[in-house]
C-alpha cells in the first residue's frame, strides 16, 4: 500500500486494499455489500458523524461507484460536505457531486446555494472549486443560476488570473448548454480583448470560449480576427525562451497557437484588411518554414507539438483555399510525412491530404503522391491508416486516374479488412459511375465488385447498376453478355443472380442470337441458381421468367413448368406463390400483344443523385468524404501557374460527364416512372425536383429510339404518361396513343394537336381522332391515329399535347414514331441477287447515299443487330464476307409505288467509326433512310 499524501484517509486505503485482494468477483461484491451496509448504518445511525468521517464514507461510495456499482444514497451527506469550512471536506463533496450528478431538484437547489457561497468567497481556491463544479455539471439549472455572475467574474479587473481561466471555460460550458446566457453589447468587445491579456493561460482559456461564441455569431465577434492574428504572429516569431513555462518541449505555446489557428478557421481570409491578411500569411509561412528546420529535441513530444501546430496551420490554409503557393507547399510537406517512420504522422498526412485534394489549387499536387498512397493502402500495418489511404484515393480520384485507382481499389478489396469493405465497395461504385466514359467499364467494375465482395455490395449498389443499364441503350447488350458469362461461374454470389436475373429479363434477347446464350440456355442457367437463393431473389427470378415468355415465346412451356412446380405454385412464401400463379395465368390467358404490353421493357429512370452517394454520406455523418474539387473562394485572381488552368479545364469536362451520369436516352430529363425498381427504392430518393406546376412549361420530345421500335412509353413526367402502340401494313399505319393522368386531379382542356403541314400531308396523310377535353385523375384514354404513306417524305409529324394542370398550362411536343422506315417490308434474298441489285443501283450516283460517322455509343454488335431488326428491313446474314457488317434489304410501300432499298453498315471497331451505305431506286429515300439510321449508332 503506497503512502497516502495530505490528510489521507486510512480507512479508505484499507478498503481499497481489501477490494484489490479479493480473489474473485463474488468476493469483491461481498466485500462491497458489507461496506455499503456499514456506510448506510453509519449515515442512518443516531450518532452524528463528524466531517472527516462523512468525507471518508462519501469517498468510499465514490470509489464503489467508480468500480461500476450503483450508488443510491449518500447524496445528502455529500451536499452537507459542500458547506463544510474545511477545504478537504468541501473538495470531496464537490467531487462526489460532479461525478454522480443527480437531477434531484431538491438537492440541486442546495448545491446551487453552496456554490453561490463559494463563488462569493475571497479565497480564489474556493471560487475555482465552485467554478469547476458548475463546469462539470453544466446543467440548465446551473446556466440559469450563474449566467449572470460568471461573465462579470470573467471580465472584472480585480479577478485573479487563475479564476479568469476557470470562469472562461465555465462560461463556455454553460453556453454550450444554453446559448442565450452570453450577454451581448459591450461584453462582446471585452471578451474579445481577452485575446490581448498578459497571462497566456487566460488567453488560452478565453480563445476556446471565443471560438464557440464566434460559431454562433461570427459577425458580432469579427473583431477577434485581427487580435488573433497579432497574437499568433507574436507566438510564431517568439524564441522558445520567450514564453517560459508556456513553451512546451521547445515549441512556443502550442496549445494557444492551435486554438488561434482554429479560431481563424471560422472566417474567410481577412480580405478587407490586407495588412492582417499579409501578417497571417507570414505566420503560416513561418510555420511551414519551421517544419523544415532540424528538430530541437529528439523527444516525440517536441515533434508532436510542432506538428500539431503545423497540421492546424495546414487546416487553415485549406480552409482559406486562396493561396496557391501555401497550398502547394502544404501538400509537399504532407508528401514528406507520407513516408515518415511515425505511423501517427502518416495517418494525419493522409487525412489532411484528403482535404487538399478537394482544392483546385492543390488537387494536381496531391495526385503526384498517388503511388505512395496506393502503397499505403496495401502495405500499412494498421487498418486505420489503410482506411485513410482509401479515403485519400477516393478524394484524389478524377477523370485522369479513375481507371487506375478503381483497379487498385478492386485489387485491394480481395484482401481488405472486413471492417472497411462495405465502405470501399460504395466508394468504388461511386467512382466507377462518376468517371465512366465507357459504360462497359462501369458494368465490368460493378460485376467485379459483386464477384470479389458480394456480401458487402449493398442493395443500393446493384439497384444502381440496373438503373444505369436501363437508361443507356448502348451498354445493354454488353451488360447482358457480361452477366451471362458471370453467371456461368460455378459459385456465384446471390447479388450476381439478382443483377443477372434482372438484366437478362430485360435484355436477354440482345444475346439470344448466339447459340451459346440461346433463350433456353439463359433460362436454364438462371434457374440452376434458383434453389440456392433467398425468397426475395426467387421472386425477382420469377419476374425474369415471365419476361422471358414475352421475349422468347419458344421457351414458354419450359417456363410454365417452373411456375407450375409445387415449390412455387404452393410455396409457403405468399409472395412466391402469388407470383407463380399470377404469372402462370398471365402466360396462359394473355395474347402475345397483351404480354408485350404488360411486359414491356422498363422505361428509363429519372436522373438524380446517385443513391449510393447518399448511403456513403449516411455512413460517415461526421465527415462526408468528398470527391469534388471545390471552386476556389479566393477574391484574388489566380496566380499564373500552368496547372491551374488545366484543372479548370478538366473541371468543366467533369461537370459535363456528371450531367450524363444517368441520361434517360430517349426521354427528357424530367421524366419519371413508376417502375418496379423505383417502387422498391421510392423512399430513398428525394422527390424529383421539377418545376412543373409552377409555371407554364413546354417541352419538346424527340424519342429517337422509336425509329427502331414500335411500342413503348413515348414520354413521361410526374403529371402524365404517354405510351404508344403501332402497327404497319403495306403503306398504312395505325397508332394508338395512350394518355395516362398520373395526378390526383383531372387535367383540363386536354387537346392533342397535330403539327404536319399540308404540303407534308400530301406525302404522308395523318388522321387523328379527337379525345375528350378532360382527363380524369388516374385515368387513361386512348387516341387512334391513322397514317398513309403516299410518297416519300422526310422527318415525322409532331403532336402538341396541351392541357391545364392546377391552372397552369402545360405543353408537350412529341415526335410521333411515323418515320419513313415504318413502311418497310422486309425482303429476303440470297447473296447472288443482292449483289446483282446492289451493283445495279450503284450505277446511278444519285441513287445512293453514304455516311461515314463516329460511333456515339460503344460499338456493341448485339445491340446493333437488335436495332437493325427493329428498323424494319430484312437483316441478311451470311452475305457480306465480313461477319461484322450488316446487310439489309426492304421495300418501302407507298400509295402508288414501291421503292426497293438495300443497305450496308460497316462498323470499324478500331477507329470507332461506321460507314453506312444505302442504295435505292429513289435518291431522297436513300438520303432519308441513311439519316434516320445513322442517328441510331
Amino acid at each position, binding site marked *: 500500500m503506497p503512502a497516502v499524501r495530505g490528510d*489521507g484517509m486510512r480507512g479508505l486505503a484499507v478498503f481499497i486494499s481489501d477490494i484489490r485482494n479479493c480473489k474473485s468477483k463474488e468476493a469483491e461484491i461481498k466485500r462491497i455489500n458489507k461496506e455499503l451496509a456499514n456506510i448506510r448504518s453509519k449515515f442512518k445511525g443516531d450518532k452524528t458523524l463528524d466531517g472527516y468521517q462523512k468525507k471518508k464514507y462519501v469517498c468510499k461510495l465514490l470509489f464503489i461507484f467508480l468500480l461500476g456499482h450503483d450508488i443510491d444514497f449518500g447524496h445528502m451527506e455529500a451536499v452537507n460536505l459542500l458547506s463544510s469550512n474545511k477545504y478537504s471536506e468541501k473538495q470531496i463533496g464537490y467531487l462526489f457531486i460532479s461525478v454522480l450528478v443527480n437531477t434531484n431538484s431538491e438537492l440541486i437547489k442546495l448545491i446551487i446555494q453552496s456554490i453561490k457561497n463559494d463563488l462569493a468567497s475571497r479565497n480564489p481556491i474556493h471560487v475555482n472549486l465552485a467554478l469547476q463544479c458548475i463546469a462539470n455539471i453544466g446543467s440548465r439549472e446551473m446556466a440559469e443560476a450563474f449566467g449572470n455572475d460568471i461573465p462579470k467574474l470573467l471580465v472584472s479587473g480585480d479577478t485573479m488570473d487563475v479564476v479568469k481561466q476557470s470562469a472562461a471555460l465555465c462560461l463556455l460550458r454553460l453556453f454550450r448548454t444554453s446559448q442565450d446566457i452570453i450577454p451581448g453589447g459591450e461584453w462582446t468587445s471585452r471578451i474579445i480583448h481577452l485575446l490581448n491579456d498578459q497571462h497566456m493561460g487566460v488567453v488560452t482559456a478565453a480563445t476556446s470560449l471565443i471560438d464557440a461564441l464566434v460559431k454562433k455569431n461570427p459577425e458580432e465577434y469579427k473583431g477577434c480576427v485581427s487580435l488573433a492574428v497579432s497574437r499568433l504572429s507574436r507566438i510564431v516569431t517568439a524564441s522558445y525562451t520567450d514564453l517560459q513555462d508556456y513553451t512546451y518541449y521547445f515549441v512556443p505555446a502550442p496549445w494557444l497557437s492551435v486554438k488561434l489557428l482554429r479560431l481563424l478557421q471560422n472566417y474567410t481570409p481577412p480580405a478587407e484588411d490586407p495588412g492582417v491578411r499579409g501578417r497571417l500569411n507570414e505566420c503560416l509561412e513561418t510555420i511551414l518554414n519551421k517544419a523544415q528546420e532540424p528538430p530541437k529535441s529528439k523527444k516525440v513530444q517536441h515533434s508532436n507539438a510542432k506538428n500539431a501546430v503545423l497540421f492546424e496551420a495546414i487546416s487553415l490554409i485549406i480552409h482559406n483555399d486562396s493561396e496557391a503557393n501555401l497550398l502547394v507547399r502544404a501538400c509537399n510537406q504532407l508528401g514528406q510525412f507520407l513516408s515518415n517512420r511515425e505511423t501517427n504522422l502518416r495517418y*494525419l498526412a493522409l487525412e489532411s491530404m484528403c482535404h487538399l485534394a478537394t482544392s483546385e489549387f492543390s488537387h494536381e499536387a496531391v495526385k503526384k503522391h498517388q503511388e505512395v498512397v496506393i502503397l499505403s493502402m496495401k502495405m500499412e500495418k494498421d487498418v486505420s491508416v489503410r482506411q485513410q489511404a482509401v479515403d485519400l484515393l477516393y478524394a484524389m480520384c478524377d477523370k485522369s486516374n479513375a481507371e487506375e485507382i478503381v483497379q487498385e481499389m478492386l485489387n485491394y478489396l480481395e484482401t481488405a479488412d472486413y471492417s472497411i469493405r462495405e465502405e470501399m465497395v460504395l466508394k468504388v461504385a461511386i467512382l466507377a459511375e462518376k468517371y465512366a466514359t465507357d459504360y462497359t467499364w462501369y458494368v465490368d467494375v460493378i460485376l467485379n465488385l459483386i464477384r470479389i465482395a458480394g456480401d458487402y455490395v449493398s442493395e443500393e449498389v446493384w439497384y444502381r447498376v440496373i438503373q444505369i443499364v436501363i437508361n443507356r441503350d448502348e451498354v445493354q447488350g454488353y451488360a447482358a453478355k457480361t452477366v451471362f458469362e458471370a453467371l456461368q461461374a460455378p459459385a456465384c454470389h446471390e447479388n450476381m443472380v439478382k443483377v443477372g436475373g434482372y438484366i437478362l429479363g430485360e435484355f436477354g434477347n440482345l444475346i439470344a442470337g448466339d447459340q451459346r446464350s440461346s433463350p433456353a440456355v439463359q433460362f436454364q442457367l438462371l434457374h440452376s441458381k434458383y434453389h440456392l437463393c433467398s425468397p426475395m431473389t426467387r421472386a425477382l427470378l420469377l419476374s425474369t421468367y415471365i419476361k422471358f415468355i414475352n421475349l422468347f415465346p419458344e421457351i414458354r412451356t419450359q417456363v410454365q413448368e417452373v411456375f407450375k412446380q409445387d415449390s412455387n405454385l404452393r410455396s409457403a412464401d405468399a409472395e412466391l406463390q402469388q407470383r407463380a400463379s399470377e404469372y402462370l395465368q398471365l402466360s396462359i390467358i394473355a395474347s402475345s400483344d397483351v404480354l408485350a404490353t404488360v411486359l414491356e421493357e422498363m422505361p428509363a429512370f429519372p436522373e438524380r443523385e446517385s443513391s449510393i452517394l447518399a448511403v456513403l454520406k449516411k455512413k460517415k455523418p461526421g465527415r462526408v468524404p468528398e470527391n469534388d474539387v471545390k471552386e476556389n473562394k479566393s477574391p484574388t485572381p489566380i496566380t499564373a501557374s500552368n496547372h491551374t488552368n488545366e484543372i479548370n479545364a478538366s473541371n468543366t469536362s467533369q461537370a459535363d460527364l456528371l450531367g450524363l451520369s444517368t441520361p434517360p436516352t430517349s426521354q427528357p430529363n424530367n421524366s419519371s416512372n413508376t417502375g418496379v425498381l423505383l417502387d422498391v427504392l421510392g423512399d430513398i430518393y428525394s422527390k424529383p425536383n421539377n418545376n412543373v406546376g409552377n409555371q407554364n412549361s413546354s417541352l419538346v420530345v424527340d424519342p429517337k429510339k422509336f425509329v427502331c421500335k414500335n411500342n413503348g412509353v413515348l414520354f413521361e413526367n410526374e403529371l402524365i404518361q404517354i405510351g404508344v402502340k403501332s402497327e404497319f401494313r403495306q403503306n398504312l399505319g395505325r397508332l394508338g396513343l395512350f394518355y395516362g393522368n398520373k395526378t390526383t386531379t383531372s387535367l383540363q382542356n386536354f387537346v392533342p394537336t397535330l403539327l404536319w403541314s399540308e404540303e407534308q400531308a400530301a406525302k404522308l396523310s395523318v388522321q387523328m381522332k379527337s379525345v375528350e377535353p378532360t382527363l380524369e385523375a388516374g385515368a387513361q384514354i386512348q387516341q387512334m391515329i391513322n397514317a398513309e404513306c403516299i410518297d416519300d417524305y422526310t422527318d415525322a409529324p409532331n403532336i402538341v399535347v396541351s392541357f391545364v394542370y392546377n391552372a397552369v398550362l402545360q405543353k408537350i411536343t412529341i415526335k410521333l414514331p411515323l418515320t419513313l422506315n415504318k413502311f418497310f417490308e422486309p425482303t429476303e434474298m440470297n447473296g447472288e441477287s443482292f449483289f446483282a441489285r446492289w451493283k445495279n443501283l450503284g450505277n446511278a450516283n444519285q441513287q445512293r447515299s453514304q455516311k461515314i460517322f463516329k460511333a456515339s455509343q460503344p460499338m456493341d454488335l448485339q445491340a446493333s443487330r437488335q436495332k437493325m431488326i427493329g428498323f424494319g428491313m430484312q437483316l441478311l446474314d451470311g452475305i457480306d464476307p465480313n461477319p461484322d457488317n450488316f446487310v439489309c434489304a426492304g421495300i418501302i410501300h407507298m400509295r402508288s409505288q414501291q421503292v426497293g432499298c438495300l443497305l450496308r453498315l460497316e462498323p470499324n471497331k478500331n477507329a470507332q467509326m461506321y460507314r453506312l451505305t444505302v442504295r435505292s431506286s429513289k435518291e431522297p429515300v436513300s438520303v432519308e433512310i441513311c439519316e434516320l439510321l445513322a442517328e441510331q449508332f
Partner: protein
Amino acid sequence: MMQFMLLFSRQGKLRLQKWYVAHPDKLKKKITRELITTILARKPKMCSFLEWRDLKIVYKRYASLYFCCAIEQDDNELLTLEVIHRYVELLDKYFGSVCELDIIFNFEKAYFILDELMLGGEIQETSKKNVLKAIAAQDLLQEEETPQGFFDDHGLG
C-alpha cells in the same frame, strides 16, 4: 472539445473516467467497454488515433496504463497526445514517479489534478508550474486544517 477521458489498465480495468458530456450511466459503461476492448486489441506500433462513431479517439500507453481521450472532428490529435503527456507529467511530479497504484489509492487527487489541467473539455492551464502551484495551494489549505478524525481512524472505518 474533449468528450471524455478514460484511464484503464492492461487487464482492462477502468482506473479513472472523466466525462465532459452528460451520458446516462448505462451508455458510459457501454462506451467504456467497447473502447477498452478495441484499444487493447491494437498492436503496439499502430497509430494512436482511430475513428470511432463520429469522434476521434486518441490513446497512448504509459507503462501498465492506457490513457484514452475522445475528441471531436475539429480537434487536434497530436496535441491531444500532448494533453495526455502533460497529465502524466503532472501526476508523475505530484506523486513522484507515478504508478498505477498511486492512481488507484489516490483517485481523488488524480481528479483534482485533471480539473486544474482541463475544464469543460478544454485545456485550462498548460503550464506545468502553474498547475502544480494550484495543487500545492490546495494541499496547503488541507494541512492547515487539523485532521480531526485522524485519531479516530485506525484503518477499520
